């Protein structure tokens, strides 16, 4: 065993905090390698398993939260041969003693995995109903959204990133009038060249979305049975539901309070080790070698590597190029954003087949792509030309 990895005895369980995709996938992968190691998972919610990306396109399919949850906590306990503490929060970690405090009780661990997820960012809104703006980050939020949409007709979505655009497409599809409010000229501003974003905007508008580009929501006020959303350009929207989707913020507080190094996320090395011995982090809460990647595919790769490490074979995480499929059926998009530190430029060609945008460095090496419409069929071929994100 190389230095820096667990060499103690396994009397105490491996503890995973978090039962989202990162926590449960790590547990599932671990069980493929070690069927018996004591394992405890701690969940702030009810511990049901569901596939989170479905939250942004489940409404039009009329999926209830119960239908999205494919396994309940009892099924997960059996499947994983694990103890799962539901509705339980960890308040502190005493790394020197390998002990955490959960709901007032001390729990000793051999190795600890932080799979805490991320919180939705909140826009700084004024008004007497600013606190009634919804964000959908888990199954309970989705249930609240469904309830709020009941009987409504008009929706304001703040933010035209991935989640905002996916919700806009989904809700337009079932007849809502959707207002999209975004500070940028075109949607998916951080992922796509503007030409492709403009096409997505046109497609969503054709599907019924009203676009408020280059503007911010300033205030949300209650009025009769609805909300009045005032924008920076003075426009006032009268809507039944306000949904915020302006991004995610890694959950770092627990780590920070426990003396674990944080930056944008909980800082880890290639082995997903935090600055504290025997404490690991992955998923939306983690910053792995400088990368914060709140997507499913990186979680899968990280969970597999971490499971091997936990099972006794230290294994660094490797990230291949990981294209993201945007769930906007009005205008299909797949994008592999170029790494932020690679200088280069987009070469964009548009045809009836869609937009084909390729990001090249000065040596004409491909580092990213964005494909729309029928051009999305080139996803696999182009992905194979991309260098790994973390070799």
């Amino acid at each position: 065993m190389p230095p820096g990895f667990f060499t103690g005895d396994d009397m105490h369980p491996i503890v995973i905090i978090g039962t989202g995709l990162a926590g449960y996938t790590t547990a599932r992968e671990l069980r493929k390698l070690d069927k018996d190691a004591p394992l405890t998972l701690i969940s702030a919610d009810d511990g049901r398993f569901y596939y989170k990306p479905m939250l942004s396109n489940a409404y039009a399919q009329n999926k209830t939260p119960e239908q999205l949850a494919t396994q309940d906590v009892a099924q997960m306990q059996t499947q994983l041969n694990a103890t799962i503490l539901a509705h339980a929060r960890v308040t502190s970690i005493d790394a020197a003693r390998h002990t955490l405090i959960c709901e007032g009780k001390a729990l000793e661990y051999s190795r600890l995995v932080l799979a805490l997820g991320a919180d939705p960012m909140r826009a700084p809104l004024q008004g007497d109903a600013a606190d009634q703006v919804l964000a959908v980050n888990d199954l309970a939020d989705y249930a609240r959204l469904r309830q709020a949409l009941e009987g409504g007709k008009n929706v304001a979505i703040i933010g035209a990133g991935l989640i905002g655009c996916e919700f806009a497409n989904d809700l337009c599809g079932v007849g809502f009038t959707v207002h999209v409010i975004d500070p940028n000229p075109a949607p998916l501003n951080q992922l796509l060249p503007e030409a492709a974003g403009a096409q997505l905007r046109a497609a969503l508008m054709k599907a019924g979305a009203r676009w408020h580009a280059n503007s911010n929501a300033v205030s949300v006020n209650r009025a009769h049975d609805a909300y009045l959303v005032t924008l920076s350009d003075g426009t006032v929207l009268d809507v039944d539901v306000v949904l915020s989707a302006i991004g995610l913020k890694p959950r770092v507080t627990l780590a920070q309070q426990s003396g674990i190094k944080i930056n944008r996320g909980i800082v880890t090395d290639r082995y997903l080790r935090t600055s504290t011995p025997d404490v690991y982090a992955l998923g939306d809460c983690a910053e792995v070698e400088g990368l914060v990647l709140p997507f499913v595919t990186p979680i899968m790769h990280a969970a597999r590597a971490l499971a091997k490490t936990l099972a006794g074979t230290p294994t660094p995480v490797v990230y291949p190029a990981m294209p993201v499929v945007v769930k906007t059926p009005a205008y299909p998009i797949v994008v592999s954003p170029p790494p932020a530190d690679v200088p280069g430029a987009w070469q964009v060609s548009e045809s009836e087949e869609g937009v084909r945008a390729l990001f090249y460095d000065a040596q004409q090496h491909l580092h990213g792509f964005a494909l729309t419409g029928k051009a999305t069929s080139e996803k696999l071929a182009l992905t194979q030309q991309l260098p790994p994100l973390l070799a």
Partner: protein
Amino acid sequence: MKKWQCMVCGFIYDEAHGLPEEGIAPGTRWEDIPENWACPDCGAAKADFEMVEIKAAV
């Protein structure tokens, strides 16, 4: 021909259709797909799929 469903995200592999865009020809049986293949939607491993009987669409 059988169908296999990803336990993580619900993606369905239909042997009859294959996955031509990934170079898997229609009719390719599940056992002939490489073990290192991953779910095209979520990246879950082949081992995370289960066979499902799917009723014809209504």
